[in-house]
């Protein structure tokens, strides 16, 4: 079985600050990490690899050369191979252009039964790339997966809703997007870190190598135009903290809400 996991290297937003003038992330000096949901995606693939024989896990990413560190980390966690799509032609890609590039990377890899993505990246929060890849490839997708089971030739997944979940079955190949409830990712192994940095299990490919559609990648291939980034001004209003133990606070809250005719 061949599994492809798409990962993104992102700035650790726990340590990130926003430029108050430009409204953009200050990336300088901020450590880069594998996007957390993508780690859950990878972990799920690795669990399948632990459980079944002849499972190959390939990790795919698009980004600058330094994103190789993310692939090394994935290999140190147990992935077999890594592919980094790195090319100036990819620079400035929005989600459409990114999914176009990643889909080209997946076609280049060829055989696949399962594709895992994280639900969304912490630096963009769009949750679009995974579903778009499935559309590009013309395969089914199950998003927001918190539990996954492999059946004969198909998968059964629990897809999370706000107040419940669907149980969905789909034929393979299928694309899954993972949420953090899916599993607890393992750590990279120390031995794996050395193996990963040997470099022989990571390929760096250009747009031409994977025959990505030039009109649909990079800044020019991106339909999204960012005109301005800014922090919305906080709305004014009265904030009042209720006092007392939780029961008293709840009682007081209900009284207030009734006064305001909200309930």
């Amino acid at each position, binding site marked *: 079985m061949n599994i492809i996991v798409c990962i993104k290297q992102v700035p650790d937003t726990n340590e990130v600050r926003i430029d108050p003038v430009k409204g953009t992330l200050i990336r300088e000096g901020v450590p880069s990490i594998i996007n957390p949901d993508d780690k859950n995606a990878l972990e799920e693939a690795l669990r399948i690899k632990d459980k079944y024989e002849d499972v190959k896990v390939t990790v795919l990413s698009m980004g600058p050369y330094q994103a190789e*560190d993310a692939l090394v980390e994935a290999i140190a966690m147990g992935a077999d191979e890594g592919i980094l799509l790195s090319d100036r032609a990819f620079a400035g890609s929005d989600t459409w252009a990114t999914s176009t590039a990643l889909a080209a990377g997946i076609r280049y890899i060829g055989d696949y039964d399962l594709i895992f993505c994280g639900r969304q990246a912490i630096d963009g929060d769009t949750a679009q790339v995974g579903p778009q890849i499935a559309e590009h490839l013309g395969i089914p997708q199950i998003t927001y997966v918190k539990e996954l089971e492999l059946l004969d030739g198909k998968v059964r997944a629990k897809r999370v809703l706000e107040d419940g979940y669907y149980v969905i079955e789909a034929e393979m190949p299928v694309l899954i997007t993972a949420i953090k409830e899916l599993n607890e990712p393992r*750590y*990279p192994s120390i*031995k794996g870190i*050395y193996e990963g940095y040997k470099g022989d299990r990571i390929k760096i490919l250009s747009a031409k190598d994977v025959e990505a559609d030039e009109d649909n990648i990079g800044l020019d291939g991106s339909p999204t135009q960012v005109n301005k980034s800014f922090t919305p001004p906080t709305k004014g209003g009265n904030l009042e903290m209720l006092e007392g133990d939780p029961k008293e606070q709840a009682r007081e809250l209900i009284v207030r809400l009734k006064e305001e005719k909200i309930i």
Partner: protein
Amino acid sequence: MDFKLSKEQEMIRTVMREFAENEVKPIAAEIDETGRFPRETVEKMARYHMMGIPFPVEYGGAGGDDIAYAIAVEELSKVCATTGVILSAHTSLACWPIYEYGTEEQKQKYLIPLAKGEKLGAFGLTEPNAGTDAAGQQTVAVLDGDNYILNGTKLFITNGGEADIYIIFAMTDKAKGSRGISAFIVEKDYPGFSIGKIEDKMGIRGSSTAELIFRDCVVPKENLLGKEGEGFKIAMKTLDGGRIGIAAQALGIAEGALEESIKYIKERQQFGRPLSKFQGLQWMVADMATAIEAAKLLVYRAAYNKSNGLPYNKEAAMAKLYAANVAMDVTTKAVQLHGGYGYTKDYPVERMMRDAKITEIYEGTSQVQQMVIAANLLR
């Protein structure tokens, strides 16, 4: 001169820090309180190839170097010095002498499971009457056919009672003094080997420190490590490397205490402002950080020398002497910065202060380090 860690070492630091924060820190206070050996942590470390970092992959190791190993001990010790010493004693004192002096058969049989973390190792040199004077060994080993018969007692053995494989030193020829000492690989189940008293310690309370008793203990002849009479040399060389591990542990303890102190003095308000706004305390923190940085350079330098085949006897002694001193000093100041709260178990700095003290004592007291350094200078 290049002060940059390699990419591998950087990633190992990140992983070790995450591991320490999530897996080790949450139980640090509990194992200190109860004196429970954190077996589950050892199993987790084994899973991630942390138990044999500086050894080649073909011998079960991670294929790393001594700086990476020092970083691992440092990061663990930032949150739990007990875990730091378990790893240090296992790696430096048990795995390393087998790697360095063992036969191919001994490496296959013992180093591989040790470096993989399937087995835990310990090192038995100290005796009730042979501490700093390690040459005054009273444990004896007598060759009897295909076996050596060991008799004697070892004291203060780290990982004792928890370990599976022990490097044990004994006199094979009393007349030759230190040149009559030999080293043996002893399995915990060998007949005649038992565990005596488990020490109730001031610090590193989750680590096991035990008495080992040998009563006509039967050790197969092929478990002699090195040659007869090489034991003292093996012990001294092993301790040179061990000191890098303990220096890294001391460094980690100091760094952990500084982190806790910075966090605390930014939060704690007195006279209407955080303690961190008082210049007197700012100066304390500046001195603590500077001493830590100096200790760090000494530790990494000693580890660098060891990994690169350069002499490290003096460097390791300096690193341990200084880092242990810094650990004691910084943790004492950390308690001071926490005031009354620092003296309670509500904050981890009192534990760190108790843990720090041992780094001035074991694997050669600070005075022994001074002897080693002076011997290098005055020969």
